[in-house]
C-alpha cells in the first residue's frame, strides 16, 4: 500500500492557502486579513517543500512570516484609528473586480491547459543551500551585489519617509 502522501499534503495546503487567501481579500477587519496572511504564506512554504525547494521554504517563512508580516502588523497598529475599528473596506468596484479577476483566472487556466509544457522528470536536488550559495558567487553575482544596493536604497528611503514624526 502506497500512501498518496504528496496528493494529500498538496490538497490540504491548497485548502489552507486558498481559504486564508480569501480571508485576506474579503475580511472586513484589516487585522484579520493580516493574520490570515500567516497561513497563506506558510501554505506557500509548504508548496516549496513539496517542490523540493527546502531552503526557499525556510526563507519564505523567515522573510514573509517573520519579516514582512511583522512589518504589516506594525503598520496596521500604527495607522489604526480608534474610532474606526473596521477600517474601511468597502468594495466599491465589486462586480467589475469579480468579472476582471474571473476573466484573468479563466485566461490563465486556458493557457495552463492548452500549452504543451515541456515537462521533464524532476531532478533530485540535494544541498540546495550550498548550491544556491555557489550560484550567488558565480552566475548571479551581479544581481546579488545589486540586491545589497537595492536594500540600502530601500532602507534609506523608507527611513527618510517614515522617520519624520520623531519621538514626541
Amino acid at each position, binding site marked *: 500500500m502506497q500512501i498518496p502522501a504528496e496528493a494529500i499534503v498538496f490538497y490540504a495546503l491548497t485548502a489552507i492557502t486558498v481559504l486564508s487567501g480569501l480571508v485576506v481579500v474579503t475580511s472586513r477587519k484589516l487585522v484579520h486579513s493580516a493574520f490570515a496572511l500567516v497561513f497563506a504564506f506558510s501554505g506557500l512554504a509548504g*508548496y516549496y517543500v513539496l517542490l523540493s*525547494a527546502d531552503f526557499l521554504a525556510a526563507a519564505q517563512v523567515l522573510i514573509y512570516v517573520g519579516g514582512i508580516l511583522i512589518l504589516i502588523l506594525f503598520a496596521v497598529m500604527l495607522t489604526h484609528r480608534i474610532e474606526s475599528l473596521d477600517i474601511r*473596506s468597502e*468594495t466599491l468596484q465589486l462586480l467589475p473586480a469579480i468579472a476582471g*479577476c*474571473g476573466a484573468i483566472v479563466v485566461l490563465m*487556466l486556458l493557457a495552463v491547459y492548452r500549452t504543451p509544457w515541456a515537462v521533464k522528470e524532476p531532478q533530485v536536488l540535494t544541498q540546495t543551500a550550498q548550491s544556491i550559495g555557489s550560484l550567488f558567487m558565480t552566475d548571479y553575482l551581479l544581481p546579488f551585489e545589486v540586491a545589497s544596493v537595492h536594500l540600502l536604497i530601500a532602507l534609506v528611503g523608507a527611513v527618510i519617509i517614515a522617520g519624520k514624526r520623531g519621538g514626541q
Partner: protein
Amino acid sequence: MIGLHHYLVVSAVLFALGMFAIITRKNGVAILMGIELVLNAANLNFVAFSRYVWGGLTGQVFAIFVIMLAAAEAAVMLAIVIAVYDRFQSIDVDRVDSLKG
C-alpha cells in the same frame, strides 16, 4: 500524482485573489497584502517551472530575489502609508489626491 498543472492553477487563483484585493481595497495596507499575494503567486510559478521544466536551481534563485524585492517594497510602501497617515489622518488611497490639479 501532483504535477506542474496543479501548481499553476493554485498560482493563478492566488494571483486573481491578489488582483481582487488590489482593485477593491481602498486601504493602503490591504493593497499591499494583495501585492504580496500576487508576488507569491509569481514565486510559486518560478519554483514549479524550475522543478518540472527547466530543472536546476534557477527558479529558486529568482524566487529569492523576488522575496528580497517584496521585502524592500513592503518596507518602502508601508513607510509611505505611515507618512500619509500622519499627514492626512487616513490611509484611504483615494483620499490622498492633493497633488491633483
